[in-house]
Every structure is written in structure tokens, then in C-alpha cells.
């Protein structure tokens, strides 16, 4: 079939289309082969270890129906805790990010200094160490729960990365926009709210989405301070049942569910912002 299309009497346009189609097919085929090989390797490996697959035992850790009533299992409860931690930490990290970005851009020497110290300290120490410091030192001093210690720690950590992205977006707005806004007599607050941020946010969204996805993934770290999130629940179940493969794969799948949904939401936002901007 393709040989005929590629023969010399086919029009160049047809030829190009056939070639593109063929490249696409090769692409898909190699992907299928790759996934199949990977699956086969895992199964072979498990078989070699004499692993006893027990997928049928997994659903009860998600939900059970007793007397016609749905009872949520530990994995679902853990998922909800993870969602809760992530959602609160996201809002806080964006607030921190915006504040720090504005501090870094402010004319105040002290403000810029504080922002710099925060960024360098947070970005250059391990998250795990920060969690431990938050839990064993800051939470003890402030008398806050481990849940809030985890939330605050994540917000402070991801806030540093968000701050740099937000700053980048603000700086990318053309100088003329600032000048026009100032020349019209807008106050600094209005310059940001009405002129700079509406133009900067669409630029920030794609990299910010990355930070938010990271935040969800990094939230697994609160399991070291015994917050009953998805990862902690998974570990408990594996310790009880020895179903390491099934449970960890399920946990990974649940994280993927959250992060992919988040990516789609941000994509939708991007589209919406993109529509009114014809520039």
C-alpha cells in the first residue's frame, strides 16, 4: 500500500502525508512494544521471585460495602488527607510565593534581603530535613499539630519555587506597560492588580502547574511525621499484608490521578486566559 503511494506518480502532497502517517504508526508501535516489554519484565521478575499476586484483596482497602453501606477503606481516607494537605498547602504556597516575589522586586533593601535568605535556605536544604525541623522544633515551639506542621512545611518549601516563577512572570511584562500604568497615575497596588498580574499570570501558569504537581508528590513526605496520608496508609497496609506490589502500584496510581487532574485543570485555566489575549 505504502509502496504504491511512494511511487513516483504520487503527488508530493500525498507522499508527505503517507510518510507522516508511517512515522506516526512506527511511533505507536514502538510505544506498545516498549510498554509490553516493561510489563513482561515486571511479571517475569515477580514470577522469578515466586510473587503471589493478590489483586483481589486490594479493593477492600479502598472501600467496602457492609449492609448496603459504603465504608471507605484506609487508602481512600489517606487519599483524602493527601488532598486536604495538598489543597491547603497550595493556597498557602501561592500566597507565600506572591509575597516573596513582591519583596524581591521591592525597592526596600530589608525586604529584598529577607526574600533572598528565605529562598536560599529553603531551596538549598533537603525537604526531609525541613520536615523534621518543622515537626521537632517549630511545631513544638508553636504547639501546632503534625498535620499543620506538614502543611506549613510543604507550603514554605514550594512557596520558594513558586516565588521565583511569579517573579519571572512579573519581570517578563514589558517595561512600557509599567510606564504607561504609572504615567496614567495608577497607584503601585493598582499597577500590579490591573496591569501587570493579568499579563503575568498566563506566563506563570505552565511552570506553576509543575510546582503544584510537585507539591502533591512531595506531600508523601509527611508520612515521616506520622500524618495518615496516602503513603502512610499504604505503608501500614503493606506491613500488614506483604502485598508490596499491589499496594504500592495502587498508591502510585492514586497520586497519578490527582496530579493528572491538576494538570488538566491548569490547562483549562491557560486556555481561558489565552482566549481574551490576542497579543
Amino acid at each position, binding site marked *: 500500500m505504502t509502496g504504491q503511494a511512494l511511487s513516483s506518480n504520487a503527488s508530493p502532497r500525498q507522499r508527505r502525508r503517507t510518510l507522516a502517517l508511517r512515522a506516526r504508526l512506527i511511533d505507536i508501535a514502538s510505544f506498545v512494544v516498549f510498554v509490553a516489554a516493561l510489563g513482561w519484565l515486571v511479571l517475569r521478575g515477580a514470577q522469578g521471585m515466586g510473587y503471589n499476586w493478590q489483586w483481589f484483596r486490594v479493593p477492600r482497602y479502598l472501600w467496602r460495602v457492609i449492609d448496603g453501606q459504603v465504608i471507605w477503606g484506609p487508602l481512600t481516607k489517606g487519599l483524602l488527607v493527601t488532598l486536604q494537605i495538598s489543597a491547603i498547602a497550595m493556597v498557602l504556597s501561592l500566597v507565600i510565593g506572591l509575597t516573596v516575589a513582591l519583596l524581591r522586586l521591592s525597592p526596600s533593601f530589608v525586604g529584598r534581603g529577607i526574600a533572598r535568605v528565605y529562598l536560599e535556605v529553603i531551596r538549598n536544604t533537603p525537604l526531609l530535613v525541613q520536615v523534621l525541623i518543622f515537626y521537632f522544633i517549630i511545631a513544638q515551639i508553636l504547639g501546632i499539630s503534625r498535620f499543620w506542621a506538614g502543611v506549613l512545611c510543604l507550603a514554605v518549601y514550594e512557596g520558594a519555587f513558586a516565588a521565583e516563577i511569579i517573579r519571572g512572570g512579573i519581570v517578563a511584562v514589558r517595561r*512600557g506597560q509599567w510606564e*504607561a500604568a504609572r*504615567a496614567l497615575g*495608577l497607584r503601585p497596588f493598582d499597577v500590579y492588580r490591573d496591569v501587570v498580574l493579568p499579563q503575568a499570570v498566563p506566563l506563570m501558569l505552565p511552570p506553576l502547574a509543575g510546582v503544584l504537581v510537585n507539591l502533591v508528590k512531595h506531600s508523601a513526605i509527611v508520612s515521616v511525621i506520622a500524618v495518615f496520608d496516602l503513603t502512610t496508609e499504604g505503608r501500614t497496609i503493606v506491613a500488614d499484608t506483604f502485598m508490596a506490589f499491589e499496594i504500592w502500584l495502587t498508591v502510585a496510581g492514586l497520586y497519578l490521578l490527582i496530579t493528572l487532574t491538576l494538570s488538566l485543570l491548569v490547562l483549562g485555566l491557560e486556555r481561558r486566559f489565552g482566549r481574551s*489575549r*490576542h497579543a
Partner: protein
Amino acid sequence: MSRDGQPMIALSGVNKWFGTFHVLKDIDLEIHAGQRVVVCGPSGSGKSTLIRCINRLEEHDEGQIVVDGITLDEDMRNVAAIRREVGMVFQQFNLFPHLSVLDNCVLAQRRARGTPKAEARERAMHYLERVRIPEQAAKYPAQLSGGQQQRVAIARSLCMEPKVMLFDEPTSALDPEMIKEVLDVMIDLAQSGMTMICVTHEMGFARKVADKMVFMDHGRIVETAPPDRFFAAPASERTQLFLSQILSH
């Protein structure tokens, strides 16, 4: 003349440096209400910097700038007060791309003047009519031609009802066939008695509307003269050379 016969804008002994580069050297200039001043000179001569100092987009390092009786200094309240009285039109238009033409004209009225919405819209339409593009009010800047964008920018400034308008090479970024529509609007404005300072190379426009020509070179005001004398018999050799270069073709 504004109140007490004071000049609308008075610069005395103004100096400015960008790092070690001396952009403005001992500038003295007085502009009275209703005067139309055209500032010209080779690029890098400090013309743009000069007018950008008047609304504090640039800070001068020495000397005094007084606009409508208010002295420009560190006090942000004075700066804000002056910016309310002084409109500016830029070479690159600098319309807000995320706002419609109408909202471009409404925004500052609402925020800086606290004008009620209906009134702000009405005024915006009034000035859009004046620059002859009321039918574009619902469009976004990127949908307009350069000339139309610049006219919107003029309308946006006029909506603040400024006492002075600054034009920073308003036609330099435009295609030749669009220059006229912008200049026509500016001539209109000049004939309505607006105090204007224009940095421009449009000598036809200058001849037509200017009361006063200012020629700058290397950060200095080399010559100030009424247009007839400026074009017919420039006093300085530097001005003669400049004019011969830009008027020769």
C-alpha cells in the same frame, strides 16, 4: 498662563546621569499653559529622557522641575499629583493588551480618579470619538493597526483630562501611511489649546503647530526658537547641520 502667571512647566539647572553617562546637562526650560513645544535632535541627545523626567518616569539628579506649581521630589504624593495632570503618549503605544479599547480608557479614570463607571465610560467614548475610532471600543489592542492603537493611547491619556500632554516620538513606530492619522489627531489637539511637548522628527507637524522649537544635542539644549526662525535661520551650526540632514530629502 496658569495661575499667578507661573509657567506650567519649569525646569532649572536639571542634570541627569545614567551611570557615568551624562544624559541631561544644565537644562533650563519654561513652558507656559497652551504652548506647543517640539523637541528635536539626533538620537541619544536626551530628548526622551527630558520629557520622561517631567512625569518622573526618570528621576533627575540635580536641579528643579516644577509642574503646575508642584515641585517634583522624593515625595510620592507630589509625583502622583503631577502624573494626574500630565498625560503621556509613547512610541510603542503601550496599550494594555488584556483590556478592550474601552477598558483601556476607563481603567485609570476609575482607579486614579475614582470616577463612577458610567461617567468613565461616557468620557472614554467621548475621547474615542475625538480620535475618530469610537467603533473600535469593544476590540482588543492587538486587533487594531498601529495608527489606531496610537490614537487609542492618545484618547486614554485625554480621559484623565490632563493639563499637559507629553508625546515621546508618537509616530516613530508607525508605518508611513498611518503617520498622518495620528498627526491629524495631534494637530486637532494642539488647536484646542492643549499644552503639549512633543519629541518628534515630524518637521511638517512642527512647522504647523509649534510655538517653540527646542533643539538638543549631547544632553544640552543647543537652541530654542520660534519655528519660523528655527527653520529659516537657525543660529547654531549644529542645528543647521541637523536640519540639513533631516530636511534634505
